[in-house]
């Protein structure tokens, strides 16, 4: 055991020194330079990548080439004034000091939002048509040229403005201030001027849509909505020359609180059923949870000893809202406490064993001593030698099951149990020491006695 500990410690240090987290075992990745070339050759793919980046709000940073070539872009719009929902033709030319740039993507932004891409022809010209769905008196159109990674050109852009003509519209919602949860909520919606279009109503995380002309009534069941303050928003999208409109309203959905009663003993035992009483008025669906888990008639056995929440929750049942009642209970788990008495038992056995050993050694010492002439008076060294022998005989007696008694001579008993000794030399050293102490006038020396105690350890 003594040798094992340093070996284990050394092995642990070796493992800690050699331990290196390993990376996942994956197949080789494709060459990045080749991938960049692939994307450069595919403007459509580049467009998709830009859209993906825009969705995530990522600003793609493209490193310019070592000697960038400046570019210039022009932008023309036709007409300059358009009715909302109408089309505007956009055209322009992309050039560098060396000449026109062909086959390049030009991004068209309408009021700051990416709308379209246009590709330049062999003369660097690009043209496209956009539909104006923005309801502002003046809309900015921007053409942006952003070179692909690895291109030797600089970014350039041009801006133009279009005047937009449209009609403003209004939307009104009439709703009651309060409604009982579970009943229908009646909304009256009116728009001015009358147009046939879709109205989307958002209330409590749900969306309803309807097509109206001038006014309409909507009935929304409140059972599926949460009780409390309900914010309602109605939106009408722009349609042709008519601008979008929105209106809001607030309704209080009132719910009633059910009466809930929960009675439980403060102390519960794991693995056993507990006497828990509960009731609700009115009688609605409930769930009883212990430590966040459904209570199934008994306290779960795998719950450790400690304090837990016993919670009774009622399901929402319009007009009654969901409520919960919690009580703190102490759960005792005997399997958790089991190691404690076991440890006490082990400590008791160890104590008893130690005490028994002392008594047994003392008995054997008396036996060993009584085998000598009764009149003999021993020196302290001789008594120590006999005590050493008594210890050795006790140890070997425990191993062999043959106890020493005075019918044996020292040597007879030693021969009988010698096979159980780990060190024969030590056994015979102790026997010789005892024999000399008893039968010889020579007193054992302190060095011999010290070796005797060492031998006892190795026996």
């Amino acid at each position, binding site marked *: 055991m003594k040798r094992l500990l340093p070996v284990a410690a050394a092995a642990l240090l070796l*493992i800690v020194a050699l331990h290196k*987290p*390993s990376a*996942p075992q*994956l197949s080789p990745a494709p060459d990045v330079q080749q991938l960049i070339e692939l994307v450069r050759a595919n403007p459509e793919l580049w467009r998709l990548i830009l859209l*993906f980046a825009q969705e995530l709000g990522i600003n793609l940073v493209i490193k310019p080439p070592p000697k960038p070539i400046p570019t210039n872009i022009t932008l023309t719009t036709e007409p300059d004034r358009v009715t909302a929902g109408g089309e505007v033709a956009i055209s322009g030319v992309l050039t560098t000091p060396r000449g026109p740039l062909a086959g390049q993507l030009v991004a068209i932004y309408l009021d700051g939002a990416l709308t379209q891409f246009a590709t330049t022809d062999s003369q660097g010209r690009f043209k496209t048509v956009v539909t104006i769905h923005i309801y502002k008196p003046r809309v900015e159109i921007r053409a942006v040229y952003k070179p692909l*990674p690895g291109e030797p050109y600089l970014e350039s852009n041009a801006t133009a403005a279009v005047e937009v003509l449209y009609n403003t519209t209004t939307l009104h919602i009439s709703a009651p201030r309060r409604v009982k949860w579970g009943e229908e909520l009646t909304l009256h919606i009116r728009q001015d001027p009358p147009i046939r279009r879709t109205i989307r109503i958002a209330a409590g995380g749900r969306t309803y849509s309807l097509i109206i002309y001038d006014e309409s009534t909507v009935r929304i069941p409140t059972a599926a909505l949460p009780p409390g303050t309900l914010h309602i928003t109605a939106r009408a999208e722009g349609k042709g020359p008519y601008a979008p409109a929105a209106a809001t309203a607030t309704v209080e959905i009132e719910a009633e609180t059910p009466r809930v009663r929960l009675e439980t003993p403060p102390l519960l035992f794991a693995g056993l059923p507990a006497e828990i009483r509960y009731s609700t008025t009115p009688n609605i669906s409930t769930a009883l949870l212990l430590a966040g888990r459904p209570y199934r008639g008994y306290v779960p056995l795998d719950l450790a000893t400690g304090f837990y929440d016993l919670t009774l929750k009622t399901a929402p049942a319009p007009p009654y809202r969901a409520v919960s009642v919690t009580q703190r209970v102490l759960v005792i788990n005997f399997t958790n406490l089991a190691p404690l008495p*076991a440890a006490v038992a082990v400590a008791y056995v160890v104590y008893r064993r130690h005490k028994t050993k002392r008594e047994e050694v003392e008995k054997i010492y008396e036996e060993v001593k009584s085998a000598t002439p009764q009149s003999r008076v021993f020196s302290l060294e001789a008594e120590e030698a006999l005590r050493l022998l008594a210890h050795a005989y006790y140890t070997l007696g425990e191993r062999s*099951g043959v106890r020493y008694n005075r019918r044996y001579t020292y040597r007879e008993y030693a021969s009988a149990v010698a096979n159980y000794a780990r060190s024969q030399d030590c056994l015979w050293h102790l026997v010789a020491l005892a024999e000399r102490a008893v039968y010889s006038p020579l007193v054992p020396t302190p060095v011999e006695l010290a070796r005797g105690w060492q031998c006892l350890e190795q026996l």
Partner: protein
Amino acid sequence: MLRTTLAAALTALLLLYLTPSTTPYSPHNPGPDGLSKLAAHCQLADQADVIILAPGAELPQYNVSALRAPIADPFINDGNPRNPVVNARGKPAVAPNATPLTGPGTPLVYTSPGSFITNDTRGPFPLALAVATDNKTIYIYHAALFSNQAIDKNAALLKEVCARPVKIVVADPDPAHLLHEHLDEAQPWAAPAILTATSLYLLLKKTTWQSRREK
């Protein structure tokens, strides 16, 4: 001899217990590709509706697996083409050493169209799938989204995923990972086992002493 063998076996088990796992994406691996930070934040369970799948591992019951081919994105990445920035329900997330998930289901997290696993195979590749079964929906995420090197950048996604118990499936586990897994399973039975072993030991010793005294 018996005592020495027992002591050696216990020492070997103790060494394995003290040694961190080197299995990639193991919850007991504290390295950059381990999931020890995730394990500290989330409740791990054997039965869960949210599953985190490591490259090379598969879920035959849902016909979903994680390939071993790494995704390279030369444009939308976190400073390295092998660390693609992905779309996690409209928000950016980082997935170092990510590989595609294959199988049926609705993609929840996916890479950009400009990501590749070979020159001929390009994205978007799914890194999370919602798989509808008979009575519930199983959410399967790629482990690269939650590795120790990525988890701090994907805090919002982690919060969303850890709202429910999580199961981690790794490929080629090492002995330290297996030992920790088995110890986790055996934890509820540790106290009864210690009690039984102690009782048996005491019973055995008592019988032996009595027989010796009788001699």
